[in-house]
């Protein structure tokens, strides 16, 4: 019945907040793509098409530093999650332009590769799926500390073919030592140019959790409200039961894999932002002209920010030797 009726609407203020964040995320990604195409960046990769999933995730995560907060092992399509947590969009522009002011990597890494210790966002890496091998470690520390924090690990569908995904299933469900890990798979049906249907025989990736006694669910990640409810329920379970949960969200990939595949809009995929905007119009929460105005304002703001960013200094070549070895134990000291 609930399938037919659709998810229960969220509180109106929350709907508007989610919309603004989804819109900002989409426009930020489009600005990043524009920067790449104009030569203000070497490579673009990001998450347009995952906003309806990533925004609720960022809003629901228990943000902060240390074991009492959630550890986030994200992937390079997670910018929306960071924005929902409160990240400044200009920092993504800085990483695209690889400026010295890029707070995530100081101009060392690609766009979308965030890292923020003060929010437990561990460095996002290009080798997809390694995060699934690392996540059990932070979860073990949280379980031992008897904290309320959980470990959230997210990747795409193609990468679940890697052994690290199996590692996470095994390590999270050791009998008597189950871990508070929320395993998220945003399934866009693609691995660069290869359709998942030609490589994966399992009906749902989430089904793989069942063999380990892990609770699983498959959801429509293009629906922000469904995502919000389901993530909340999954997080509550992991947070309270201190056991793993595997959630598969079916999402779109709206600008292809990366700039390497052209970064052009995919007209035949579901656009979660357009769908959500229509819902807000239907519910009388925002009018088309209000949304057009928002779009114009945000676009203008990002354009101005990108103009500032391209004037910011690039890292000096001599700084390559900085941060090879740590002089002190930042992660332990919490400094």
């Amino acid at each position, binding site marked *: 019945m609930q399938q037919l009726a659709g998810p229960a609407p969220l509180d109106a203020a929350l709907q508007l907040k989610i919309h603004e964040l989804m819109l900002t995320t989409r426009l930020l990604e489009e600005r990043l793509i524009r920067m790449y195409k104009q030569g203000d960046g070497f490579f673009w990769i990001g998450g347009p098409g995952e906003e309806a999933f990533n925004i609720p995730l960022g809003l629901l995560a228990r943000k902060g530093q*240390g*074991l009492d907060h959630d*550890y986030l092992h994200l992937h390079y399509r997670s910018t929306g999650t960071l924005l929902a947590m409160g990240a400044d969009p200009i920092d993504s522009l800085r990483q695209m332009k690889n400026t010295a002011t*890029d*707070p*995530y*990597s*100081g101009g*060392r*890494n690609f766009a979308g*590769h965030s*890292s*923020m*210790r003060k929010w437990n966002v*561990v*460095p996002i*890496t290009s*080798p997809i799926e*390694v995060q*699934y*091998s*690392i*996540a*059990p*470690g*932070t*979860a*073990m*520390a*949280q379980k*031992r500390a008897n904290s309320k924090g959980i*470990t959230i690990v997210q990747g795409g569908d193609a990468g679940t073919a890697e*052994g*690290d995904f199996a*590692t996470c299933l*095994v*390590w999270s469900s*050791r009998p008597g030592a189950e871990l508070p890990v929320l395993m998220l798979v945003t399934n866009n049906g693609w691995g660069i140019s290869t359709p998942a249907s030609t490589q994966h025989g399992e009906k749902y990736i989430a089904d793989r959790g069942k063999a380990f006694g892990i609770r699983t669910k498959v959801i429509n990640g293009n629906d922000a409200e469904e995502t919000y409810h389901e993530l909340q329920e999954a997080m509550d379970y992991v947070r309270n039961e201190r056991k793993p949960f595997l959630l598969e969200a079916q999402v779109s990939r709206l600008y292809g894999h990366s700039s390497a595949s052209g970064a052009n809009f995919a007209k035949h995929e579901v656009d979660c932002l357009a769908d959500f905007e229509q819902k807000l119009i239907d519910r009388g929460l925002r009018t088309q002209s209000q949304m057009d105005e928002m779009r114009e304002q945000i676009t203008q703001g990002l354009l101005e920010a990108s103009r500032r960013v391209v004037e910011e200094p690039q890292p000096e070549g001599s700084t390559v030797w*900085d*941060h*090879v*070895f*740590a*002089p*002190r*134990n*930042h*992660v*332990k000291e*919490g400094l």
Partner: protein
Amino acid sequence: MATMVQAVRMALHVGEERLGVTDIFGEDVGPPLGGVFTATQGLKTAWNTPLDERGIVGAAMGLALAGQCPVAEIQFCDYAFNTIDLLKLIGNTYWSSNGDWNCPLVLMTPVGAGIRGSIYHSHSFDAQATRLPGWKVVMPSNPLDAYGLMLSAIADPNPVMVLLPKALLRVKAGPGEQIPGEPDDERALSKMIDAPVGDRSGWEPRWPDTPDLFVPIGPLRLVRPGTDATVVTYGRHVPVARRVAEDLAEEGLDIEVIDLRTLHPYDWDGLKASIRRTRRVLFVNEDTEITNFGEHLLRRTVEELFDELLAAPRLLAGKHLPGIGLADNLERASVPQREDMVDLLRAMCAETRGAAGPRPAPAVRLSRENTDASAALALAYARR
């Protein structure tokens, strides 16, 4: 009179008690076995993992990022090859996050041939390990260094790989290699810290009171001073080189032996001083010879000291073979042997290339006091 494996165990105990070690883990690391080489018997934070090296290395990284102090073991380095990209990631985390996330963990693994371990228990890892920037890499050659380097590895805010030469794990401490506080009698120590055969469920170790003696990561150790040639090695070939030097002394050749101890960041100043003094250098290790760590040291030697050398610098390393065969003759034909070292040193000492060259050997002498393990230990101890 500890063996190297007992020394590692005592260091890990000190790590648990006083340096904040939270997890010692790997395949068969926890009770009842306490490690296939017994390195982790009786340790209160030791636990068993699934048979999954990527999981072990990944969990170590996650624990480290969550402010814990993990010591992970890969049972044999031969099984670490499927973790290379995670090791690379651990090494680049501090750098790629521009100094935000350091990754303090210890990864220990037995390396090398010498126990008739055949194709998958004889690999070396020094060539791989030194190709992982962001890691510190140490390799002890005796129990005291194993103890002190392990403590330094645990205390370091960076990832540190402790390569344990498996052929030396059961070799007892020699003169000057005893850990302060351990009983002189090896049987007494064994009774205290070796798990009994059979049912161990009620067993608890009695740890000797050993101090926080740190062998600093970096400085090499002068094993034996000499004037005619320098042998630079680490791990299993240190005692071999020492015996070779003692034998060649009877032929009138005075060979200096250096135990590098830290492969990265290595003590180039110390090496350079020794090579400039003896003007002949032989690098020895047992990893396969193509893109071997010793080749890097050779390259620096040639670039920086070429005019001062009396003999072409040499590398004695393992053959570039797909594996180390089980039969004794096969293993001996694959990795450096005592006789190879003797032959090479004799040949090198007969060479006097450039003896009348433009730059005489400098008078700088490598001070034994500055590099000797016990002095370094005493210094580190005094500072605490």
